[in-house]
């Protein structure tokens, strides 16, 4: 088997399944098989999906810098899948909020999005990721041409809003959002530094 086929038929499915572990774990906990959801099950699910969304966003953003440092170009092949997993977990976070936390109570949902800044920015991040997800196909990429890269640079905006959303909702202990912020800051600084070093290359995401 050549490398491309190996990647496609062995490594991609393996990474796909690994990325699904948090989701399987959540289902297992719902049914009390792998653990449980504790005293506040809805909050537990909402928090864990939100956390995995942020983790996958940061992993996705780390792919290109890591590929450039290491020279492992095959890493780029996993970027779209990881980005879609980030969207998947953010979507689960959003749906948990919509159906389980708010119980589809429309007036409260609208009021929350409009009046609670941390929910407003979280919702904005979700909308950005949604538009990136639907334009992630090869067909869309062709159709959008040069605009595609511009659009997909918005992943940084989504990540910043996502981390900010986390900061804003914690009561006091900011240690977790601080970890995400540092990771994101390193990735952003690297990106700026890379541009400065390689002024002729438009973007590192290629």
């Amino acid at each position: 088997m050549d490398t491309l086929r190996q990647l496609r038929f062995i490594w991609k499915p393996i990474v796909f399944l690994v990325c699904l572990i948090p989701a399987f774990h959540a289902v297992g906990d719902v049914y009390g098989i792998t653990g449980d959801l504790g005293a506040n099950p809805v909050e537990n699910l909402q928090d864990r999906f939100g956390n995995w969304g942020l983790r996958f966003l940061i992993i996705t953003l780390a792919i290109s810098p890591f590929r450039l440092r290491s020279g492992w170009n095959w890493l780029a092949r996993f970027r779209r899948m990881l980005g879609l997993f980030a969207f998947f977990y953010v979507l689960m976070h959003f749906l948990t909020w919509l159906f389980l936390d708010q119980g589809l109570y429309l007036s409260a949902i609208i009021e929350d999005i409009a009046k609670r800044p941390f929910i407003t920015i979280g919702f904005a991040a979700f909308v950005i990721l949604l538009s990136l997800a639907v334009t992630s196909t090869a067909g869309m990429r062709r159709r959008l041409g040069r605009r595609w890269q511009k659009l997909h640079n918005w992943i940084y905006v989504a990540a910043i809003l996502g981390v900010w959303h986390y900061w804003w909702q914690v009561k006091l202990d900011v240690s977790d959002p601080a970890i995400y912020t540092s990771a994101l800051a390193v990735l952003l600084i690297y990106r700026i530094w890379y541009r400065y070093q390689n002024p002729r290359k438009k973007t590192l995401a290629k």
Partner: protein
Amino acid sequence: MLIKKPADIRPSEITTKDNYLNRRKFMQAAALAGGSLITADVLPAVIPGERRAKLEGVIASEYSTDEKPNSFMDVTTYNNYYEFGVRKEDPYRNSQDFEPTPWSVEVTGNAENTGTFALEDIVKPHTLEERIYRLRCVEAWSMVIPWVGIPLASIIKQFKPLSSAKYVVFETLHDKERMPGQKSRSLRWPYVEGLTIAEATNPLPILAVGVYGEVLPNQNGAPLRLIVPWKYGFKSIKGIVKIHFSERQPRTSWELAAPHEYGFYANVNPEVSHPRWSQARERRIGSEEGGGLQSLFTAAKQPTVMFNGYGEHVAHLYEGLNLRKNF
């Protein structure tokens, strides 16, 4: 409906917890034995048997609600007690080595009967009452908890406060060796809370020494904690070592941490939002037996009631006070 006839629910009738705990242990054992792909969460520390002592001579109270209490598991594993860590599971994980005896309480300030008192001497003259109260957390969740304690008003009377005592101030133990959460500067230690003397002598607040008919577990504030059911949970200070009768309103811990978010009064009020979230509704905590998807969909939020439903007993305390300003 608040007032129930004293004999509606006896302590003995609520103790479904043993079955509950057994089921948990069984499920976790099954999960481990099944060799699941992901390890089950660390076994919840079931409180060591020698520490679980039944309280004798507990009488029922007309102030108890007839709502269904939360399970022993919920009450003892989902706690805000930053002295033992900031996550909900930290208090039961980190408080198991805490030794709450011997314990004494220092009484200071504008009162005749001040000094340091052994906990037993404070408790002894009183009859223990079971008070099944709603607890509303400022984080918009709530529980129903069968506390065992003594009316705060009776205890205060015992210290004979002077007329110059306008506030009662409470302090939690400050000892970072025994309370590891105090190694972090999440809050300014020691934890300080307070009530006006009128609030403190209202019949509702109690100093709790137990829950579910048993001695108070460490994670719930052993051996002595305050319960003020019409205020947000953070007013109900745990692990009390000091009671001070003061002329001045104290600066309380959460007020110091975020003055625009948490006030001195902290009365449950659905109309005054927390700056970052609504207080109009609350989620009643409850991990339903069996779990499953269905139980997630029935966990919808319920409306929050002014003064947590205790208005008929306490609303008069705030006549003429702007509750929007004095949140």
